[in-house]
């Protein structure tokens, strides 16, 4: 059920009109009826009083002359008044003299006479009236009336009031239905306009003003409000347009800025690439340089050997044999010098063979070093590609290669190499990167040992593998590292050596990272040696456990 609050205004107005007129009419009817009741009671009392007085007067003679029958006859005349239910005449001694009772056969208890006056009971009106004759009281008359007339009147009035009320409310309804439009119609229109404005978001709509009352002012206010909203809407639109334009401008500016930044970034990238290339070139040259050292050593050795070669002595022997061509047999058998020649030739041949073997060995070394350079170059070439060449290699073999590359210098500086290969894993990785790192670490270890100046220079290679990866530790008993340097030892350009350029470890660390691994360092302090461990996360394809170090 809809509550009164939600009722449309026109219904409310109609209802108000009806209720108001109904209430007013009810009040009027009530007042009128109350007034009528009071008046009617007064009138009734007065009428009854007059009747009583008249009857009393008419009974005066009968009372005076003791003619009760006559008095009763007189009282009987009351039967024309149906509302009078009983009457009684009392004599001077207050004894009943004559009585009248409209309901025959009812034994009526007559009240004791009181002074003159009327009294309303719940459904009766009683009157006592003294009877006078010649100015003298000669008795009392009592008349009792029911209130049926009043009740009937009341019922009649109630019925009339109800009918009038009904008709009035109906009329009020009809009138209010017509007249409520004066108020409700503008309100309804206003509400409709408001709904339309809300629905269509069209603030140019205006309500039409009909009069200059409060509703008219409301409509004015509403229109003014709409105007204000429209104006603000326009401003807002303008602001929005401006904003869009500004956003576009800003976007354009940003786009340009981004482009500039991209260019800058590209330049930076280019610069860094060039720097990287330079760095790579440094690394390559460094590695090549290292190997070239060995090459140089080998070449020097071969040159020295050749300079000190006994091959010239073959020539001298040849000259001697040539001088003694004629008597060669005699010379070889008789001459003391000639006799020594075969032995000399044998010794020379032995020496030359030895010499040849040494040179050959050194050349082999040289060849390997050149091979390494080739490897470095080809590694650099592969490095220049997106990814390095991945090979499946045996880690111990890799370590051996690295040691071999440093073998010359290790041997020159009397560094003992201890191999502790606990495991012999086979992994798939970029061989040259690992080799490069290891060569670098081994050379560093050799330098550390060399600088310490101790006698028992020792380098230990420890190889371990487990399910997570492979660890290669290069342990030396050299100069060690200051604790404060441990953290920056991998930084670019950091070095403790006079001839170092701080590139080796840095490059190694980067390479390890590129391989997905890392290089860690440990040192107990100066002269305590150092341990560099290359950890590679490669899961071994196979691990060949080798308890005895080779």
């Amino acid at each position, binding site marked *: 059920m809809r509550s009164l609050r939600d009722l449309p205004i026109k219904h409310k107005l109609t209802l108000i009109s009806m209720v108001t007129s109904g209430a007013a009419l009810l009040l009027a009817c009530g007042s009128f009826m109350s007034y009528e009741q009071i008046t009617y009671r007064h009138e009734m009392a007065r009428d009854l009083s007059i009747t009583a007085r008249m009857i009393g007067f008419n009974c005066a*003679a009968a009372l005076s*002359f003791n003619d009760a*029958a*006559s008095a*009763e006859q007189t009282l009987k005349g*009351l039967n024309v008044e149906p509302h009078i239910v009983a009457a009684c005449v009392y*004599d001077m001694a207050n004894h009943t003299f004559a009585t009248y009772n409209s309901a*025959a056969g009812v034994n009526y208890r007559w009240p004791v006479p009181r002074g003159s006056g009327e009294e309303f009971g719940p459904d009766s009106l009683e009157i006592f009236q003294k009877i006078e004759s010649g*100015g003298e009281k000669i008795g009392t008359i009592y008349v009792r009336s029911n209130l049926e007339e009043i009740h009937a009147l009341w019922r009649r009035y109630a019925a009339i009031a109800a009918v009038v009320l009904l008709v009035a409310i109906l009329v009020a309804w009809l009138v209010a239905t017509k007249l409520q439009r004066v108020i409700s119609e503008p309100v309804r229109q206003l509400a409709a306009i408001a709904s339309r404005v809300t629905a269509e978001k069209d603030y140019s709509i205006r309500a039409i003003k009909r009069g200059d009352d409060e509703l008219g002012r409301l409509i004015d206010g509403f229109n003014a409000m709409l105007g204000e909203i429209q104006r603000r809407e326009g401003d807002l639109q303008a602001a929005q347009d401006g904003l869009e334009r500004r956003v576009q401008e800003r976007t354009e500016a940003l786009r340009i800025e981004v482009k500039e930044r991209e260019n800058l970034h590209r330049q930076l990238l280019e610069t860094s690439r060039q720097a990287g290339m330079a760095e790579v070139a440094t690394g390559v040259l460094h590695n090549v340089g290292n190997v070239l050292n060995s090459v140089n050593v080998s070449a020097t050795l071969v040159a020295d050997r050749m300079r000190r070669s006994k091959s010239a002595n073959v020539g001298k022997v040849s000259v001697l044999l040539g001088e003694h061509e004629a008597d060669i047999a005699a010379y070889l058998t008789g001459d003391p010098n000639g006799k020594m020649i075969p032995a000399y030739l044998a010794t020379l041949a032995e020496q030359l063979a030895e010499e040849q073997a040494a040179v050959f060995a050194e050349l082999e070394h040289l060849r390997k070093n050149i091979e390494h350079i080739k490897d470095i170059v080809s590694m650099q070439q592969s490095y220049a590609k997106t990814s390095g060449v991945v090979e499946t290699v045996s880690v111990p073999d890799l370590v051996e290669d690295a040691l071999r590359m440093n073998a010359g210098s290790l041997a020159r500086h009397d560094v003992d190499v201890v191999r502790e290969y606990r495991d012999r894993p086979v992994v798939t990785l970029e061989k040259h990167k690992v080799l490069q790192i290891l060569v670098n670490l081994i050379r560093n270890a050799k330098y550390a040992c060399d600088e310490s100046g101790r006698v028992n220079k020792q380098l230990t290679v420890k190889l371990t593998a487990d399910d997570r990866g492979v660890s290669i530790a290069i342990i030396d008993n050299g100069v060690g590292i200051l604790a404060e340097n441990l953290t920056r030892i991998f930084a670019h350009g950091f070095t403790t050596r006079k001839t170092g350029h701080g590139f080796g470890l840095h490059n190694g660390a980067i390479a390890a990272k590129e391989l997905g691994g890392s290089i860690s360092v440990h040192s107990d302090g100066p002269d305590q040696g150092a341990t560099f461990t290359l950890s590679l996360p490669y899961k071994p394809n196979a691990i060949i456990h080798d308890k005895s170090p080779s």
Partner: protein
Amino acid sequence: MLEQHRLLPQMPDERPHHSLARRRSLYAVVLGLLLLLWPLGAGTPSSGAVISRKFQIQAAFVFNFTRFVTWPSHRFAGADSPIIIGVLDDNPFGDELAAIVKNRKVGARAVEVRMVATAAEAGFVHILYVGAGHEGRMEEMREALRAACVLTVGESRRFAELGGIIDFVLDGDKVRFEINLEAGEDAGLKISAQLLNLATTVRRKS
């Protein structure tokens, strides 16, 4: 023409008399009568003579007539002049009538009782009671009484025949009266319709 008049001719009695109601009304009348008589008897303790109940009632009635009869105004000197009841020659009431009227008033007027012997005396009274046997005397004063507008009250047939105005009759043991309205009107008296109603018979002008 003799005719019985009811008190309220505008209220015709259409209801048949109920025997019970009649008996009850009779009873009430008797009771009322007895009660009415009681103060009358008590009012004459000094009187040694025993007055018959008939005369006691007649005395009360005579006094009551003063209330239902109007005399011409010239019969009174003033508004408060007394009404004089005369008893011709012989007083059958003893002190009864005097006791009844004593200290009582009809309107503004007191009531006095006088013994009347002559016509001249009779001209001063307003009511003249003519006892049985004194009707001849009334006959003699007839003109004077009529001229003086005297209400004559008697108790015999002869009195009535002689033109007496109100004549007591006995209806069983009940005292009632007849009225000669014609004579009354001749004497210039106005007799209340109520009184006429109570009369057993009323003689009117034909």
